[in-house]
């Protein structure tokens, strides 16, 4: 007898999501790590359900890397200005957020903890998409358009592995997914809604954050289902959005690739010689490219058409 399909978060009542959050916890396997979220904030259940809609609803992870608890703050003015705290392993992190912004607090805290704790992986500040088993790594500073580009690629047949962490397993020299909702900001939200109006599933918008308006794009069902699949380094892409620019792709020297990777890594210094050798190997064996674009649709078409030329013939 065939087993029943595992329900996704978007397929169960929000009351069940809240029941898990407020009870045994909601387990989210994002690839390289498992996160258990607890919360007594009802609105967070809806937000998580939207942003993590394709993740399994009733998954129990065999181990948990991060225990997080988003808690409605107890204070006298709780009823007219509710705030939430984020706790990790019994430790309070950060200043409280407004209760309605519980999801941005959870996401921000989760990213902060991943960057600080996963030193078994070399964590590039990079988006990663996969095709044919090869990773296209996009290390870039905030504002370069990497999240927008990776989101669009993820909606165009590429598998999004992460919009924030290029997580390289130093032993296997392969990238692991850190698949979370893509936090798009300001104009990028409308750009992606317009790019894929039928496919793009967003959580609520959060105006007035430190980075302006933020909305979380849910990962696709395929990306979630393949979250444990790793990818060999295929190529490095340095994206730069420039108003009015035609789409151009130019090769980048290996020394520049090394700089971009090493200096855009969260924990490069921590990983020491091992990290150095891994970055040098990727820089030597994977081709690197500078992409300048202004038209997102055209950029995606160009990357699709030139994919085989972008990667090394034998991978890395």
């Amino acid at each position, binding site marked *: 007898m065939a087993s029943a399909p595992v329900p996704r978060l978007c397929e169960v009542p929000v009351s069940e999501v809240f029941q898990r959050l407020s009870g045994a916890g909601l387990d989210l396997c994002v690839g390289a790590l498992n996160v258990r979220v607890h919360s007594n904030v009802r609105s967070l259940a809806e937000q998580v359900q939207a942003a993590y809609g394709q993740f399994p609803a009733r998954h129990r992870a065999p181990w948990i890397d991060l225990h997080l608890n988003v808690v409605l703050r107890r204070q006298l003015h709780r009823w007219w200005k509710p705030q939430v705290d984020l706790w990790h392993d019994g430790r309070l992190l950060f200043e409280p957020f407004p209760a309605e912004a519980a999801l941005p607090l959870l996401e921000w805290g989760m990213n902060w903890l991943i960057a600080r704790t996963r030193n078994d992986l070399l964590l590039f500040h990079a988006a990663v998409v996969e095709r044919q088993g090869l990773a296209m790594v996009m290390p870039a500073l905030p504002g370069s358009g990497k999240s927008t580009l990776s989101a669009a690629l993820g909606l165009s047949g590429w598998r999004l592995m992460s919009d924030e962490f290029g997580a390289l397993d130093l032993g296997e020299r392969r990238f692991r997914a850190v698949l979370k909702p893509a936090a798009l900001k300001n104009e990028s939200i409308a750009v992606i809604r317009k790019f894929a109006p039928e496919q793009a599933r967003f959580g609520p918008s959060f105006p007035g954050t430190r980075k302006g308006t933020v909305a979380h794009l849910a990962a696709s069902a395929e990306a979630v289902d393949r979250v444990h699949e790793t990818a060999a380094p295929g190529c490095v892409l340095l994206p730069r959005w420039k108003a009015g620019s035609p789409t151009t792709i130019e090769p980048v*020297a290996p*020394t520049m690739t090394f700089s971009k990777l090493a200096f855009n890594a969260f924990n490069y*210094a921590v990983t020491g*010689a091992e990290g150095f050798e891994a970055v040098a190997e990727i*820089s*030597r064996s994977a081709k690197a490219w500078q992409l300048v674009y202004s038209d997102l649709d055209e950029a995606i078409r160009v990357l699709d058409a030139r994919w085989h030329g972008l990667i090394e013939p034998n991978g890395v």
Partner: protein
Amino acid sequence: MYLRAPGLRVLPLGEGWVAYSGLSRESHLLNDESVAMLDELDECQPRSAREVAERLSGPAGMPVDELLAIMADAWPSLVEVGLVRELPMAHAT
């Protein structure tokens, strides 16, 4: 007198070189001249700038004094970033 820093790793990369310092745990992009200097140093046996210049003079096809002048600017940088250790008597070349 100079020593190669412990844990130093130097790898060729494209047209240049990358180096990792076990002292500072930092990485640096290097040119050919700096790598040549590092190659002539040892982790345990200190060498003076003149000794390094003498060892490089033949392969480089340049007079020792000219090499000494070229290297003079590079030594402080290599020491500062942790790729080379300078011993107290280093100023006597």
